[in-house]
């Protein structure tokens, strides 16, 4: 056990049991899984994806690339790739290591050393550019080698939610700078949201209790600050909450992970802030040396976190490998906690004298101007030559179980960069720092390059109060990262998760890659789950060093959200299952469901497709429903039709400009089938226009076109013809529509209709009356080619009227039919469905409806386009009927060709059905010069490659029994 007897921020009164790879272990409340593993002496937690070398915990934060584990909460709650450093420990936690085969301790691939020479830089690209078949050989191997965890195989039973919030100041990061900013902003009376990705606010202060602020110990100041903020009425403190996306207009997305056992698992916050303060800190840099990926090699800052926050001694005997001042304090504290310090190996020839003096006082040996390389049970220190290589004849063996790396700091500028702020290279900071902001945002503390605690607090106070920041303060220094990688051992790991070495990057540069974006993709550096937090700066330094250019000349890769991985559950929130998208149901839905109807989605609507009786399949049910309509009467729920009430003294003028038809001569009490074009002359929608009065029209649209037609009408009314006195109202949901179709439809409804003389209602007529005692608009129209009616009643009354019609129709054999029979019935008559027979390239003449166009009208939408040469040319595809020679229903979408071997499509099949009326399959299609080809044969190419002969005929397979035009 490595747990120290005292100290840390863990709650020793609350021990927690957990398991890792089946081993039962114990930690405390306040631990992360990583700290609890280290406390139990677990040092190997995973393996690299390519070479399968064993890997330990490298960091103590969100940048962790190695300690990715699978957390299994049971019942489908299996989550891969969880960073152990960010997973709070809970009682009963079950964790398993990933990416190991067959086991963590014994890994076949690594043992054989098999993978190493086989997977150089660009391996994936080179392999998959190779001749076909090569990757079939490799794929099974690669899948096993490169796998990162297992995706869950059961639905996630947990609940996720989302919230919107507004605030004056959003502070991201609750380290000392962020806390000071939140306190200062709250004091000015502003509404503040403070978020931090850690379970506890405090940031680096949690790892550095030796500091003091305002004369108080750091943790006393921290506890006071957090208590003040939590009690403040205008402040919201969100812990375990990562700001992962920074959008336009200060719109940020945050992922909150709720404590284990909460009703919710995670919550997405979408916050609009007047101003944003980024106090996102910095991430330590690794050093390049052979063995820098080994278990036991970790960031010096992480060691200090294990020691101070979790009271864990991460090793017994440590070596510091440093190119920067900041690591020295960590080994001093480790020594104070009881660890032996084998040596401090500093790349620099002359580390700062105060550090040297302190090391001397402590009796710690310092090897300045040295580097290290791995030994089986420790490190070999050697002097660094001028070119950065190690001088191999002057070695020094350092036995150790812990190697701390201190390579300087990379400010966490991800969110600032996402906000479209510019980054600028700063030589003194040896880093890209926030430059010109693009939004109302300010960066403070370590993410601005400030490393002095008092200065961080001062910057926070200024940012919180909204005043200008004091100058950046930097106290610690180090060897520039580009100089530190010069001459580094080629086997050094740059990206430990994707197993990219210094030599991989150098190879890519030698192969001609210059752009950092290309090197990144070719080598996969920085493309692991940590998204380059570990690898990017060091990789960039290697590229710059190889090219012998300065880092800012090589450039920087783009920072894209999310900052850290976000679960699909958080992004989806409640939008799953029936809440995935809205479901619209017409007023007769419940009745249809009770009848056992089979439904189909039409847009967001659920529509009854057919009403099977016991023993019937779809074909049998549809055939019976069709025969009933042709022979007697059918009843159909047409409520989903779009409906628009067009009212006003200029309504006729308006509709004449919108639709192709002449409408001025349409008398009140009559209706007309109408076509709507786009300005390009192609059919956009169709419907029935019923005139109720001189200044009032009831217009229907297709089910799918309801919203877009109203939008188009509004567009022209508001922006093209604002002088027209017309008002548009969507009445789609107001009217329930009951279609009664068939030769006996008039007899069926006659007893129910009052207020008009039904016998006097002509085909294509409309009248206001009552049906079954309910005020109705009765249209004598249909979409079946039979005599028929559409009864519009207020939707709430539709079920009662439907029942009355059913009852009245029972002696006549009235039969409910669904959308499938409706499709068949209209196809038998050659009626088009917009979106099925039309596809946005089809003109009225193409589908044989040119006669609808009001020839004398000066203008209507699309009129000018119909005069374009391409629209008048011969050889356009035209609507035809198609009769398959054999008895099978052809595929919708099948291409039409002149001969079986032809590669020139002449058109395609748009609809195909078994026609109960004709007792044979029928199809509609668009065919080049189709009307001329009537009487000839073409071939339909099925998706399986079969070519079936079809005879070209008129699309009107049956002659109308009733009257009226298409409608």
């Amino acid at each position: 056990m490595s747990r120290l007897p005292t100290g840390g921020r863990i709650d020793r009164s609350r021990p927690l049991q957990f398991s890792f790879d089946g081993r039962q272990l114990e930690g405390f409340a306040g631990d992360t899984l990583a700290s609890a593993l280290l406390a139990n002496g677990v040092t190997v937690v995973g393996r690299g994806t390519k070479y399968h070398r064993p890997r330990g915990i490298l960091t103590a934060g969100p940048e962790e690339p190695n300690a990715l584990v699978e957390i299994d909460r049971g019942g489908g709650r299996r989550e891969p790739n969880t960073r152990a450093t960010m997973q709070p420990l809970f009682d009963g936690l079950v964790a398993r290591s990933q990416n190991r085969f067959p086991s963590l301790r014994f890994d076949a691939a690594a043992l054989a050393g098999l993978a190493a020479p086989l997977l150089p830089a660009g391996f994936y690209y080179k392999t998959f550019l190779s001749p076909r078949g090569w990757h079939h050989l490799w794929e099974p191997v690669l899948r096993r080698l490169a796998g990162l965890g297992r995706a869950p195989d059961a639905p996630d039973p947990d609940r996720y939610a989302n919230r919107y919030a507004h605030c004056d100041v959003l502070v991201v990061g609750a380290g000392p700078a962020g806390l000071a900013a939140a306190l200062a902003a709250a004091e000015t009376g502003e509404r503040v949201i403070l978020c931090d990705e850690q379970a506890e606010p405090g940031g680096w202060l949690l790892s550095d209790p030796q500091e003091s602020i305002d004369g108080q110990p750091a943790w006393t100041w921290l506890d006071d600050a957090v208590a003040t903020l939590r009690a403040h009425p205008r402040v919201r403190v969100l812990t375990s909450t990562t700001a992962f996306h920074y959008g336009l207009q200060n719109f940020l997305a945050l992922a909150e992970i709720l404590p284990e056992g909460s009703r919710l698992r995670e919550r997405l916050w979408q916050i609009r802030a007047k101003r944003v303060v980024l106090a996102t800190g910095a991430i330590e840099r690794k050093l390049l040396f052979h063995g820098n990926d080994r278990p036991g090699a970790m960031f010096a800052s992480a060691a200090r976190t294990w020691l101070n926050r979790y009271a864990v001694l991460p090793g017994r005997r440590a070596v510091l490998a440093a190119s920067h001042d900041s690591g020295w304090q960590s080994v001093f504290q480790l020594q104070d906690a009881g660890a032996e310090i084998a040596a401090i190996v500093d790349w620099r020839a002359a580390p700062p004298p105060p550090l040297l003096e302190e090391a001397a006082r402590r009796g710690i040996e310092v090897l300045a101007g040295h580097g290290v390389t791995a030994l089986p049970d420790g490190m070999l220190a050697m002097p660094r030559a001028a070119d950065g290589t190690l001088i191999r004849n002057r070695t020094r063996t350092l036995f150790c179980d812990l190697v701390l790396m201190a390579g300087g700091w990379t400010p966490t500028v991800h969110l600032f960069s996402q906000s479209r702020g510019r980054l600028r290279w700063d030589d003194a900071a040896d880093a890209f720092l926030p430059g010109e902001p693009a939004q109302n945002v300010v960066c403070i503390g370590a993410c601005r390059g400030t490393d002095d605690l008092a200065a961080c607090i001062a910057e926070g106070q200024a940012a919180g109060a909204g005043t200008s920041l004091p100058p950046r303060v930097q106290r610690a220094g180090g060897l520039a990262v580009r100089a530190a990688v010069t001459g580094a051992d080629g086997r050094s790991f740059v990206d430990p998760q994707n197993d990219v070495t210094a030599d991989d990057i150098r190879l890519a540069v030698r192969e001609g890659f210059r752009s950092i974006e290309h090197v990144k993709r070719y080598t996969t550096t920085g493309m692991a789950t940590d998204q380059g937090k570990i690898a990017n700066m060091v990789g960039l330094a290697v590229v710059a060093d190889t090219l012998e250019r300065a880092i800012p000349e090589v450039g920087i890769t783009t920072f894209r959200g999310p900052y850290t991985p976000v679960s699909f559950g958080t992004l989806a929130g409640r939008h799953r299952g029936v809440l995935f998208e809205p479901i619209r149901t017409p007023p007769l839905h419940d009745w249809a469901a009770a009848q056992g109807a089979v439904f189909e989605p039409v847009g967001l609507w659920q529509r009854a497709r057919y009403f099977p009786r016991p023993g019937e399949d779809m074909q049998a049910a549809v055939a019976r429903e069709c025969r009933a309509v042709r022979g007697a009467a059918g009843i159909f729920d047409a409520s989903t039709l779009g409906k628009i009430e067009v009212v006003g003294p200029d309504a006729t003028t308006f509709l004449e400009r919108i639709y192709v038809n002449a409408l001025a001569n349409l008398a009140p009490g009559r209706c007309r089938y109408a076509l709507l074009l786009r300005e390009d002359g192609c059919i956009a929608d169709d419907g029935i226009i019923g005139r109720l009065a001189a200044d009032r029209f009831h217009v229907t649209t297709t089910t799918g076109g309801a919203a877009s037609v109203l939008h188009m009408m509004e567009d022209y009314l508001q922006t093209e013809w604002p002088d027209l006195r017309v008002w548009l109202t969507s009445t789609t949901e107001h009217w329930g529509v009951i279609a009664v179709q068939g030769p006996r439809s008039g007899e069926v409804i006659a007893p129910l209709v009052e207020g008009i003389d039904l016998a006097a209602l002509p085909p294509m007529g409309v009248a206001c009356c009552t049906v079954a005692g309910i005020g109705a608009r009765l249209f004598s129209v249909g979409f079946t080619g039979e005599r028929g009616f559409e009864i519009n009643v207020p939707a709430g009354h539709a079920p009662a009227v439907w029942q009355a019609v059913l009852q009245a129709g029972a002696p006549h054999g009235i039969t409910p039919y669904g959308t499938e029979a409706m499709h068949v019935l209209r196809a038998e008559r050659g009626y088009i469905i917009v979106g099925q027979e039309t596809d946005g390239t089809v003109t009225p003449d193409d589908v044989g409806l040119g006669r609808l166009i009001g020839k004398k009208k000066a203008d209507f939408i699309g009129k000018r386009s119909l005069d374009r040469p391409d629209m008048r040319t011969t050889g356009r595809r035209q609507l035809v009927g198609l009769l398959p020679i054999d008895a099978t229903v052809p595929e919708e979408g099948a291409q039409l060709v002149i001969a079986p071997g032809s590669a020139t499509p002449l058109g395609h099949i748009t609809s195909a059905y078994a026609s109960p009326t004709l007792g044979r399959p029928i199809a509609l299609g668009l065919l080049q010069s189709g009307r001329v080809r009537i009487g000839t044969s073409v071939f339909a190419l099925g998706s399986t490659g079969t070519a079936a002969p079809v005879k070209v005929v008129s699309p009107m397979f049956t002659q109308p029994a009733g009257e009226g035009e298409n409608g």
Partner: protein
Amino acid sequence: MLLIPCPHCGDRPEIEFRNCGEAGIVRPTAADDAAWTAFLYLRSNPRGLHAERWRHVHGCGRFFTLHRHTVSDRFESAP
């Protein structure tokens, strides 16, 4: 998600709006084929300030014109 300034309702979230393309495209009353084709299909697609039509479709329902910078997505007053 953008906040879009509806001249009638004030700042509202983007999901309440529908973008309706470039503004200032005049529908010709008489046009030869070339001019009509330009009306149908040719748009400026600038890198910079772009005059575009929006409709507050899930709000007041009105159409209006805004100037948006296509690089920063910032709404600016007309040039």
